[in-house]
């Protein structure tokens, strides 16, 4: 589900949004984001649980936000970038492999992209994921990663250049 669709779905249920509805509407995208950020499924599960837990702990604030999905994504990004985040084993396995549809594309390529991402500094990784996976504007990426817009652009260019050493066919994004 694209961010736009997820946000629209959240908007539709906005008047009576429950925590469970938020998780069901955004959980898949959040977990995929976390996998791209951490490069590790177990760490990603823990990150997503932590983000939703914080959202639940402040549910009154989150549910009243203009965009609860974006708010929760911002929590996830902040947790990922925070050195203080606890490392712990998730309480329940979240990946449901039996429901997974057959992925498209080359599996080796997918693995190598995650590996390539993992070689980037965490903040650069977050910039790329927010900018190119979530298609967020630079200003929003900068705000969520604690960077200035110019620093955000610089990091994005630098990180893209590094990725191109492994993926020379990477096209310029419009």
């Amino acid at each position, binding site marked *: 589900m694209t961010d736009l669709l997820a946000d629209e779905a959240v908007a539709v249920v906005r008047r009576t949004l429950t925590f469970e509805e938020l998780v069901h509407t955004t959980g*898949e995208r959040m977990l995929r984001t976390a996998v791209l950020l951490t490069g590790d499924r177990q760490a990603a599960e823990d990150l997503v649980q932590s983000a939703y837990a914080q959202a639940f702990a402040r549910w*009154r604030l989150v549910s009243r936000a203009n965009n609860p999905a974006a708010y929760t994504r911002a929590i996830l990004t902040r947790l990922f970038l925070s050195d203080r985040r606890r490392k712990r084993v998730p309480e329940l396995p979240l990946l449901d492999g039996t429901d997974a549809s057959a992925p498209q594309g080359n599996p080796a390529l997918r693995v190598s992209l995650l590996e390539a991402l993992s070689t980037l500094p965490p903040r650069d990784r977050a910039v790329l*994921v927010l900018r*190119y996976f979530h298609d967020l504007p630079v200003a929003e990426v900068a705000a969520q990663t604690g960077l200035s817009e110019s620093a955000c652009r610089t990091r994005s260019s630098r990180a893209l250049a590094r990725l191109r050493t492994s993926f020379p066919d990477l096209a310029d994004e419009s």
Partner: protein
Amino acid sequence: MLLHDHLDDAVADVFPDLPALAESSRRRGLAIRRRRQALATVGATAAAAVLAVGVYTLAPGGGDPARDVATDAPVSVDAGSLSGQTAPITGRSAAVALASAVDEVADGSFSGFQGAAQEHEAFAALRFLPESGSGPAGVVMVNVQPLGMAGEAPYTCAEQGASLTDCRAWELANGDTVRTYRDEDTEMGEGSERVAVEVISPDRRLRLVVGAMNTNPYAEGAMRAVPVLTTDQLVEIATQPWWSRTELPTEFVAAGRQLEDYTSASADES
């Protein structure tokens, strides 16, 4: 191939067990809430290293700037846990009530609590350091006063002074008036700024003012670009139904007794 497509493809086979995710996240979220409440009850010991020595309104510019290093002091009370019972207001409970109301609308940490309560009014202030943005903590304060302090009805923007700008006033369904404004006086140095929200409640015989600044007396002139809370957030805080000149929920009063990093601004309270 676009990076967007590469990224999509890289995680195309990632699917969560959504019911399990919701359940486990809720459980962890509840644990976070319980921890906050428990720590509030035992007195926010994490904040013990921070001790304010002055009264914001009396000692601007004094103190140690190191005190602006805010803590994650869990000093608030979850609004969902309020029993509906009330007890006489104190400076301490007003400080906890303010922190709890701020905690409902913003992420950040608290330090430097102050308060005072007299027969007909109460005051509380604290330093709040938002998680977002950059710059020093900002003072957030509340005054609960007799209705007469608001002047005569109708409560409009007409009588606002020259230093108060962006004034707006509107009436709520319950008959209360909300008035918001920006105060650009330089009480804490050039560039200091305060946004304020008043709730004038004839039914409760109450005038309540909450404000947020972009700095604090110990910031040595450092300013944030904007105050630490927005007008909308202050409206949320000021319109909490439990504000009163004389009573506050018992949970705030109990937590206030244990509050550390607290300085009384009245002579008869410690």
